[in-house]
């Protein structure tokens, strides 16, 4: 059973546009929601993360929107740049005795000039 569902699978955005990636989860015990960025041949790197006590977090061009009642969270990349072209993974974590991250299947973002 997939604990976190991520969409879309791939995304093409023009330079300067907004990239939006969505994730949905079922387990209300999850209490930490990070987004990771992965370039080819590299390991994932933490981009931004949010806890469920806030509805939005912004860091530079990257924003997480969190909807606790809908059990959904999304990543918005403003003013998308070709250097943002990568695969993005949402993840969930339950702090209740669990230390593992559970990842979505990923979204391959291509930002075209």
């Amino acid at each position, binding site marked *: 059973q997939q604990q976190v569902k991520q969409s879309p699978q791939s995304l093409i955005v023009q330079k300067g546009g907004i990239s939006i990636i969505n994730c949905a989860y079922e387990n209300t015990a999850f209490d930490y929601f990070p987004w990771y960025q992965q370039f080819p041949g590299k*390991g*994932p790197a933490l981009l931004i993360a949010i806890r469920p006590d806030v509805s939005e977090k912004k860091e530079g061009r990257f924003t997480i929107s969190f909807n606790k009642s809908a059990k959904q969270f999304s990543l918005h990349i403003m003013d998308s740049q070709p250097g943002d072209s990568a695969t993005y993974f949402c993840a969930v974590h339950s*702090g209740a005795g669990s*230390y593992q*991250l559970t990842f979505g299947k990923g979204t391959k973002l291509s930002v075209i000039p």
Partner: protein
Amino acid sequence: GAGVSQTPSNKVTEKGKYVELRCDPISGHTALYWYRQSLGQGPEFLIYFQGTGAADDSGLPNDRFFAVRPEGSVSTLKIQRTERGDSAVYLCASSPLAGGHNEQFFGPGTRLTVL
């Protein structure tokens, strides 16, 4: 400072062989994790170490997989009697403290190909 390093970067083996994959975490990080990433998928949790002990090995797919961290630093993931389905990128991550919401820093991975 140096990040998480993994060796080898690529490993090609034949079905039925034994392989060892090594992870050097960031110095001072007490928590270490192994994940497996199949093509087109997100990383899947395998095992978590706190210090020298495996605190959670619930993600290991079967008893052919085993991992150790004898001195609380370097870790080795061992796979016996490899199968073609074991082909994937094996990722190691470390974090400064145990559990909770501490950021996990990932290495570049070892790409394992079982022929």
